[in-house]
């Protein structure tokens, strides 16, 4: 075992200590039952031997009856223990790994936006659930099962030794030799199995994409081409999956070979010693039964060791994720005042970590917004207007200068309080496959239903809500399906209403909304801006007409900032030119 593996093994120990400790009583019960079961299963062949020898010796029928019942009783107990182990093991495995899943998810969610933007959610599903699931077994029964399998093997060999040391020696060498070989061979199919998983992912990824794009394939005549690609991918899938299966098949051949040979060997030894008068016929039978018991632990150990490789790799990935630290630290615990917030940018310079420091996204930006004022933010894609608003939430921190709310520099305010007091509605609304209530409250259970319903009515969605059979318990389908784009936007407004912030950032809804639907949103927007400071990233004339101030950004610099009324009146202002050119057409 190399040093990386050893580090991982230590990490496994640490994780085990942290997550299994709270469940140590369950873990102890599990171990006792597992080991007890092993001891009991060693007894069965002994009883059968006694039975055969007694029967051969014409013993009392009552003795035979007792032996038979003892056999049945042991069977019953062992099966009961199996069920208990299954229950305890699964429960423990999930109870512990669920906590790890939660910790990992919480940790990753706390990381910077850089991390979020460079990892697809599919990848994170694999990290948070895939990797952790492969640890389930290791958190519940790995050590016990491994030790148990060893003990069972050792127990069988020991019993053989006691019966006759020569039999013990031969069978022991055979068993442990086979175990060594099996463990050695267990890597044989690992790579192929990995390839198989990959091939499956590719095939079904292909199928899913094409089915989602069925209309376009059909209407653009790409059918024959798509089928040809399916054949191509299907061929590679066929080759890779069958290869993996055949490799695994070879391992099974080996395992079955072991069982066959163990039986032949034990019978051979039995014949030898029976002829010498050392063994009774019952003993020969018992030895054969014992030799059949050796296969199972060997198979189990080699399985566990294969799993161990996977689990160590998973532990490595989990650890490296835990090692990542967010650069945004929690604030110093100051609180922002109630009511509308004053906004102040003071010589703010910002560029993204993977961007060019010489071409910052925000270039010495300074401005101030009084409480309760609504600002319309204009500018082309890439002018820095979106970035500017993200700094208000400390999704990023400026490289130089300071952002202040109500006079407080943001790093002084606790992160929770900051994000509580600043609300945002983006163009893209993120809905969850959860109840309407959870979608609105963002899973905050402390918000009473009356408040949620009041907000729904305030948004003008009362009629829609009354039509829902299950009310707030209505489950929204994944991806917000079944709701129009406008309704989704309104729900996003609802979230911010419930949050009741002092500053609202609005990304104006995209042009996909038709003008008539948009009106409902504008009403909601008006309500939301009442008594709050507002920043609206605007695309349309209608929006710009409701704001108090206008700010136009261009290449990271404030090109123009002033009261809307003044700018409209000033024929030389950039804003005036925009109005005459048609705002929609310039900034869509």
């Amino acid at each position, binding site marked *: 075992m190399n040093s990386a593996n050893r580090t991982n093994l230590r990490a496994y120990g640490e994780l085990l200590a942290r997550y299994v400790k709270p469940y140590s009583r369950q873990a102890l019960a599990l171990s006792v039952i597992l080991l007890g079961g092993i001891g009991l299963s060693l007894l069965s062949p002994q009883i059968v031997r006694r039975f055969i020898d007694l029967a051969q010796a014409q013993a009392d029928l009552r003795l035979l009856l007792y032996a038979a019942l003892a056999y049945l009783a042991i069977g019953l107990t062992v099966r009961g223990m199996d069920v208990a182990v299954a229950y305890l093991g699964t429960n423990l495995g999930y109870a512990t790994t669920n906590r790890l899943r939660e910790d990992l998810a919480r940790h990753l969610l706390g990381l910077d*936006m850089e991390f979020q933007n460079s990892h*697809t959610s599919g990848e994170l599903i694999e990290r948070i*659930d895939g990797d952790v699931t492969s640890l389930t077994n290791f958190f519940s029964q790995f050590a016990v099962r491994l030790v148990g399998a060893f003990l069972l093997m050792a127990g069988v060999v020991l019993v053989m030794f006691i019966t006759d040391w020569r039999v013990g020696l031969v069978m022991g060498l055979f068993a442990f030799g086979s175990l060594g070989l099996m463990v050695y061979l267990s890597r044989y199919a690992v790579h192929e199995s990995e390839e198989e998983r990959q091939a499956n992912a590719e095939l079904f990824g292909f199928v899913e994409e094409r089915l989602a794009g069925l209309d*376009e394939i059909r209407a653009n005549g790409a059918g024959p081409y798509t089928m040809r690609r399916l054949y191509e991918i299907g061929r590679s899938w066929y080759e890779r999956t*069958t290869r993996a299966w055949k490799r695994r098949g*070879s391992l099974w051949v080996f395992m079955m070979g072991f069982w066959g040979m163990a039986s032949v060997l034990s019978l051979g030894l039995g014949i030898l010693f029976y002829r010498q008068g050392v063994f009774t016929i019952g003993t020969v039978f018992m030895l054969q039964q014992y030799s059949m018991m050796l296969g199972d632990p060997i198979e189990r150990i080699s399985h566990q060791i294969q799993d161990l490789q996977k689990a160590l790799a998973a532990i490595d990935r989990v650890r490296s994720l835990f090692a990542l630290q967010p650069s945004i630290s929690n604030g110093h615990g100051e609180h922002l005042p109630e009511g509308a917030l004053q906004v102040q940018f003071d010589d703010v310079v910002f560029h993204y970590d993977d961007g060019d420091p010489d071409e910052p996204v925000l270039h010495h930006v300074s401005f101030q917004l009084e409480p309760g004022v609504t600002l319309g933010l204009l500018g082309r894609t890439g002018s820095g207007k979106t970035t500017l608003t993200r700094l208000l939430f400390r999704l990023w921190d400026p490289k130089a200068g300071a952002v202040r709310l109500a006079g407080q520099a943001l790093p002084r305010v606790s992160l929770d309080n900051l994000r509580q007091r600043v609300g945002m509605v983006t163009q893209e609304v993120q809905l969850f496959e959860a109840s309407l209530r959870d979608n609105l409250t963002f899973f905050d259970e402390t918000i009473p239903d009356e408040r949620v319903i009041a907000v729904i009515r305030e948004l003008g969605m009362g009629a829609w809500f009354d039509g829902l059979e299950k009310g707030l318990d209505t489950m929204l389908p994944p991806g917000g399906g079944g709701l129009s784009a406008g309704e989704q936007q309104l729900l996003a407004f609802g979230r911010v209403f419930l949050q009741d912030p002092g500053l609202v950032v609005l990304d104006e809804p995209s042009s996909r909304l038709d003008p008539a639907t948009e009106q409902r949103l504008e009403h909601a927007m008006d309500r939301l801006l009442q008594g709050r400071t507002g920043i609206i990233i605007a695309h349309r004339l209608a929006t710009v007409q409701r704001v108090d101030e206008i700010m136009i950004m261009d290449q990271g610099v404030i090109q123009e900032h002033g009261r809307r009324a003044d700018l409209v009146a000033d024929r030389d202002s950039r804003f005036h030119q925009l109005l005459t050119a048609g705002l929609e057409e310039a900034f869509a």
Partner: protein
Amino acid sequence: MESLTMHTEVAPRVPWLRYTWRLITYRPWLFVANLLAWGAFHGIPVLTGLAVREIFDALEGASRWGWSPWAFVVALFVAEMSRLGAFRLGFGIFIDQWYILESLVRRNVMDHLINAAGARLLPDSSGAAVTTLRDDIHDVGDWVEGLTDLGGLVVFVSASLAVMFSINWLITVVILLPVLGSAVLGITMAQRIRKYRRANRAATSRVTGFIGEVFGAAQAVKVACAEENTIGYFRKLNDTRRKAAVQDTLASELFNSATHLLIELSITVVLLLGAQSMRAGDFSVGDFSLFVSYIWPLGFYMRYVGNIMARQKRVSVSFDRLTKLMVDAPENQLVAHEPVYLKEPLPTLPQLRRVPADRLQSLAVLGLTYVHPSTGRGIHEIDLSLERGELVVVTGRIGAGKTTLLRTLLGLVPAQEGIILWNGKPIGDPATWFRPPRAAYTPQVPRLFSETLRENVLAGLPEIDGKLELALDRAVMDYDLHELDRGLDTQVGPRGVKLSGGQMQRTAAARMFVREPELYVFDDLSSALDVETEAKLWQRIDRLAGATCLVVSHRRSVLRRADRIIVLKDGRVAARGRLSELLHTSAEMQALWHGQDEGDGHVSDVALSDTAPVARTA
């Protein structure tokens, strides 16, 4: 969740027997070879049991053959080795057959969905369809393979019962009871175990789905300061899954243990009944060992026989779901014997051929109607006409039926009424008619596939003399190509995520342009484009001599260009004509047009009077 309700206890009526037969006869020799190999694999233990019995009998000096026990040790060895050989051989065939059959069924479903005439509506989301294509086809493969095992099991069960019966009929009859019990157990428990398994899977996919949603919305979660609440919800989902997993494991472990117990009960019976015979000397230790060695596989095989009945139900459900996915496919299409190209050279792609009849002079639509069966929304009695070289724009509010109109015309959803005339002649199946070279289509949210940009645009067209570059140029992708690291060879990522929204739309447009169709159909092409790019796009479309376009849009610049506008309202034509007329005559058109800049009259007057080129930047 939905899949839960779809699995009913009652097996649907599908011709499963015929389907199974068609599958078996796709590669009949593989199936026969499979039967032989697995017959040997399952049958040989009858012989090894006999050999072990002879060893014990010979030891006691009661060999029927008068041979040394060593002879039978050798026989045992040979039998074990042959069994391994049978396994090795059978396993290879078994895997080949399984995956060939999966390939066949998948090919048949996909081919029908993609190439058959008529409209194609997936009964569920594409994700659910993938589940059907993966899991249900897996069940089909599993079923056929189960049948080959069944052959071997019949060999073992009948041979072993015959041997045991000849040794001691009474014990055989008595132990059959618990053994049959395991068959009954198999039948009764299998459904329930599957139910728990399904619940477990559903709980798991809720957990993974939620992780996906949360990290897909990481910014929203952070901004709303909802991290802890979100994790709290995650904890609940995790806990539900833990309970489901425990139930699932417990159910299958109980089943397993019960089977074991029944077998141990049988052995106890043999011990008790055998003891008396043994004392009487007419039941040897060899006989006892034979019974014990047969009882274990018998118990498991009987359970398997019970299981096969559950599998038959399961495969009927799978067949049913697969045929539902294919909707109107002819009988047996699911199991049609078609090449799967696992080894032979891939088929060549057909060339686009243009015939004079394809050349578009006029397109007319009369009384086109499609109402969505569940929502009741749709389009009613739409008339529409289009001459060569015209630009016709369909506009209206959200839900007015604009997209449905295009999709019904193209045959992507089945028209319930109405006729479509191409150059005055009615066309039969719009789905196969409105394809290149006659028509090409770009939907509102275009789908790209995780291949290179080149493959996405060409999608099987041969790459000849600069046509590709021309199409990209027309779609205003020329500038972007320089920006992308690897130009045309850039991998666009799953569903095209590595491109911006505008790039995706323009790539889809290029896919349409490169086909040079008679009729261009596009749904709100400009929704993700900035004005400058959009203007360039229209200028370039204008340059296409005689390009005929049917377009959904509510952009003013497009409406101004239109030769004709069709205003839809609640699925019906509210008005039609040129923009200048409609702005006077149609209230709906006015509402749509003015909706774009409600409010301050002064500013909207300024904007309305604007007749300058749309791309003017201030």
